[in-house]
């Protein structure tokens, strides 16, 4: 019998022969993170997935409209009912319910003479981070926005991932980067909460320097590959989990620079990653960081 004749059987046997039980720590880790993970409101999830609601503003106007319509219909239905038996209802007016939903604007990209300008508000209404209104930066020609969510965006040159810039509010360092599975911490909202958690990572972490981003106080540190005994035994150098669930690590020739900016008590995290970046890409990365302009957080 040839290999080709036995192929389906070989394939099935091979698939069946691999491990089928999850390590005990995996479930423990899921249950641990579950305790801290919020559940999204169903209306937000559903609206986000409806293609007709491409613009965030439209989504929220639609929600507000639907709520108003429901209230009107409900009041009309209530008014059409026969009066209930018993004492007449009180003449005290019932206050109409009010719904306040903070919009989550998408980044807007405008072409400029030298590249593109990105305007973005970052944060979310369901945690302790508030919106910035707005955050702007200038992208040199040849760079594009790569990642975008309510709490995370990135920019890279179109030529590849040798240089990357990320804007977010939170990176979640691993409790023990050498343990498996990895458990990401929820560090507090202050700049120092994050800096303190990063300073003890088992990789090469520079001393922390005080700096300023667009007039706001910031702390900056640089993270690079560990050498010798400070790395994990298996050689991995994963250090944190991004907002989008992706793990970030350092490797050979990789340098991660992080700024944690205190904007009137709200933290913005800027991360620049270089790996085999050209001198031009490194200069452009710094140019983007220098171009960041911040407005105070919107008042609630």
């Amino acid at each position, binding site marked *: 019998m040839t290999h080709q004749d036995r192929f389906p059987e070989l*394939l099935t046997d091979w698939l069946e022969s*691999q491990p*089928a039980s999850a390590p005990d720590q995996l479930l423990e880790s899921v249950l641990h993170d*579950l305790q801290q993970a919020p559940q999204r409101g169903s209306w937000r999830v559903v609206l986000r997935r409806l293609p007709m609601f491409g613009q965030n503003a439209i989504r929220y106007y639609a929600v507000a409209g639907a709520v108003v319509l429901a209230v009107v219909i409900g009041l009309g239905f209530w008014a059409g009912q026969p009066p209930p038996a018993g004492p007449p209802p009180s003449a005290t007016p019932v206050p109409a319910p009010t719904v306040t939903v903070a919009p989550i604007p998408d980044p807007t990209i405008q072409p400029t003479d030298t590249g593109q300008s990105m305007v973005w508000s970052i944060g979310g209404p369901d945690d302790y981070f508030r919106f910035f209104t707005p955050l702007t930066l200038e992208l040199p020609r040849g760079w594009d926005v790569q990642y975008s969510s309510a709490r995370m965006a990135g920019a890279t040159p179109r030529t590849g*991932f040798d240089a990357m810039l990320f804007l977010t509010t939170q990176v979640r360092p691993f409790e023990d980067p050498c343990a498996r599975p990895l458990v990401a911490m929820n560090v507090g909202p202050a700049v120092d909460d994050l800096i303190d958690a990063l300073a003890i990572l088992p990789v090469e972490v520079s001393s922390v320097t005080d700096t300023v981003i667009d007039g706001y106080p910031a702390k900056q540190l640089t993270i690079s590959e560990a050498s010798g005994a400070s790395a994990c035994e*298996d050689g991995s150098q994963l250090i944190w989990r991004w907002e989008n*669930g992706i*793990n970030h690590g350092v490797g050979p020739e990789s340098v991660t620079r992080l700024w944690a900016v205190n904007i009137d008590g709200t933290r913005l995290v800027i991360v620049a990653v270089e790996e085999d970046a050209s001198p031009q890409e490194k200069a452009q990365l710094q140019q983007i960081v220098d171009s960041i302009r911040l407005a105070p957080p919107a008042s609630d």
Partner: protein
Amino acid sequence: VQDLVELASRGDRDAFAALASSSVDRLFAIARRILQDHDRAQDAVQSALLGAWRDLPSLRDPTRFQPWLNRLLVRACYAEAGKQRAFRVSVRVVSIEPATDDSTGWLADRDQIERAFRRLTVEQRAVVVLHFYVGLTLKEVSEVLTIPDGTARSRLHYALRILRAAIEADSRSWPSEGRQA
């Protein structure tokens, strides 16, 4: 299960923990096969389960929980597979797997399959695993992956062709590798 899904979708963490407990082995087995990596499979399962918890209120039909969870898992596997491109890191994977008795004489074949399987794209691997390991029909596979039936059929066709060709080529290359050794 349906009752647990309904409770969990209303925010009952204990109900979701029960769902996670009953699903974690199956999810890990699928992710492990798609990604061919012990640690990444764990990360994918964790990501899929937490995503399921977050988005569960959007699941309209509780009876569709398992296919929906499969879909989240495959997406998490895609994301895991894409990490190396976006965030290149040096990770040496150490995984301990049970020793295999080669008395049936198929260990060499298994190595061939494994080498060939790693040459597939993650999208092709997902179709192969869902069809040959989970036992889904191609229509069910297309529903899980939210792709047209024809695309699922095409991915499977090309995946099997690549696997067959790779095994054939590996078989031919053995003698020369043996001489080098």
